[in-house]
């Protein structure tokens, strides 16, 4: 049976992928609760979702890297929505690998934003979804998390850790009626990747990835690569012998 989503929490709501998912759900009349760091941007997203048909849209302004805020933010989402039926975690940063190597504090910041913060939020959300006995938890990992590459391993490690966390969480919540979805996008044309050269068949739009996320949520998938061809690419990359892999300039 196709799941429907009428009350949805979106963390990192101003990200391009989060907006794409939220627009699709808003057009179907969902109520959304948006969490992000920048009040002006959140307001622009809120107005957009209301105009597209959201039954309601509320916002909470917070820096999600501040782990101490998480319990309160999740509590606030339940106050705003009643019993949410889905939560999307879409916050994240794409750090400069060389910068992380030169300055460990930058690596720390990237690991907090991409692993520690989402894992901490997932912990809070899992307890509440488990208690209410239903819900869908969606977090955005990355194809970069499937194998460590020299050009991007701080980001990759954080996303890989998040995927492992989600795997375990999926096992824990499976019997409790709560569904956990790991999304692994490839190259997505968003502001986060604005500095990278683009074009070519490997790049996808945020809309395409957003559509894929909503479809995966509906059918209750556990893990989805977006677009789907990345599953094949990663299958190959994961199975390359290490002796070869470490020589690749990727």
């Amino acid at each position: 049976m196709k799941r429907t989503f009428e009350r949805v929490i979106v963390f990192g709501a101003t990200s391009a992928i989060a907006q794409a998912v939220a627009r699709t759900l808003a057009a179907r009349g969902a109520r959304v609760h948006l969490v992000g760091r920048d009040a002006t941007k959140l307001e622009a997203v809120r107005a957009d979702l209301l105009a597209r048909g959201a039954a309601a849209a509320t916002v909470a302004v917070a820096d999600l890297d501040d782990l101490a805020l998480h319990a309160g933010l999740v509590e606030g989402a339940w106050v705003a929505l009643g019993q949410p039926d889905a939560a999307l975690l879409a916050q994240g940063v794409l750090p400069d690998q060389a910068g992380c190597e030169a300055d460990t504090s930058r690596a720390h910041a990237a690991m907090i934003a991409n692993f520690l913060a989402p894992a901490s939020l997932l912990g809070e959300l899992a307890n509440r979804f488990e208690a209410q006995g239903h819900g869908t938890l969606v977090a955005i990992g990355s194809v970069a998390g499937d194998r460590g590459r020299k050009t991007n391993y701080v980001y990759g490690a954080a996303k890989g850790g998040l995927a492992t966390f989600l795997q375990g969480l999926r096992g824990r919540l499976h019997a409790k009626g709560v569904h956990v979805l790991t999304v692994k996008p490839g190259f997505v044309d968003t502001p986060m990747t604005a500095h990278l050269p683009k074009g070519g068949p490997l790049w996808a739009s945020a809309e395409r990835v957003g559509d894929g996320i909503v479809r995966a949520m509906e059918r209750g998938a556990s893990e989805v690569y977006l677009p789907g061809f990345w599953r094949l690419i990663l299958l190959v990359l994961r199975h390359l012998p290490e002796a070869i892999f470490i020589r690749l300039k990727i």
Partner: protein
Amino acid sequence: MIAGVRSWGGYPAVEHAAVLPLTWRHENLPAAVRPLLAAGLSRSYGDSALNEGGTLLATTGLDRIIRFDRATGRLQCEAGASLASLYALVIPAGWFLPVAPGTANVTVGGAIANDVHGKNHHVAGTFAHHVVRFELLRSDGSRRECSPTREPDLFVATIGGLGLTGVITWAELQLRPIAATDIEVDTLAMPGLDAFFELAAGADATHEYTVAWIDALAQGPALGRGVFMRARHAEGPRTLRAARRQRLAVPLMPPVCAVSRPAVLTFNALYRLRGTRTWKRSVQPYEAFLFPLDGIGNWNRLYGPAGFLQHQCVVPREAAPRALREMLAAIAKAGQASPLTVLKAFGDLPSLGLLSFPRPGVTLALDFALRGPETFALLEHLDRIVVDAGGAIYPAKDARMSPATFRAGFPRWTALEQWRDPAFSSSFWRRVTQAP
């Protein structure tokens, strides 16, 4: 991406210093190599949305709706929103865009900056006739809200202003109500050019949409033969259907131009079968009638790596029969025309912009595979016929008209130059404003 930015025609190929996305309408312009130019979905055919050596500001991330009043049909949205996305939004509420060009894959900002027109120009005018107001972000950091009564000079300079007055961040549009998205289309065979003028005069009084397709390879007595279409929104029960997904696409560019003369002859012969001796009615989804080519993604790739040139002109009504005959004869003789030849009579509603292209008269649009110097020579020849007839060439479609041709068609260009943001320019503007 920097090297990859091409306009729809694929010519010219130029390099940009950078392509930077604009994502939030409240943010200032980024620090970047100047000159700057906003670019949307790159459906301009030539170099009017290119900025060689400078920075393109990509606006497609500015695609949020700000307010949509379903009772009044007022829509305020960011300027990077595509018309296709707006149709999907407004149709279920019983509204429709009052003017759209031949593709829905353009942005609102681009529609204003080129003051686009559609098959209903004779009743609805141009896109800007339905723009209530917009915000312009200038390189000095100022934000100007422009409307017919507020900053009216900047309003008319920005309409059809080719993006040269700054970045349009958002716009407010007045939509039109519809009861049905389906379109009732009547088609009729058009034996020659004379028939077009009679048919257009009759149908423009009774039908919202009129357009003709012509076989640009026909010569002699058959010159200007083709198919005339008149259409209106279907009446009867309320049936509102948003567009279906595009099903076909050209996935890769063929190594050579696939639009060869035999292919065009075949296409034209088949297309002409649509025209019957008496009016024949069909009911089509709006996108099939208004945006026939949007059904095939990246159709421009069929022209191959060399790309193609479009030539769209307007000539005053009195001069039209003679000028069009002369142009069609030149094209048929050269044997270079493409399958997509469109003829449409503009109405008399004066355009608002300093550089708006539509004006009373007849507009002819032709695609030409770029085969080298002879293609440029043919188009130059067509330009001379247009200029002699007192007409103009559409900047949004152009990659090569001479400064003299441009100035003859757009004598108010010096006024736009005065309102141009000093940090903004385009490859087109530098080309056509250089000393002749």
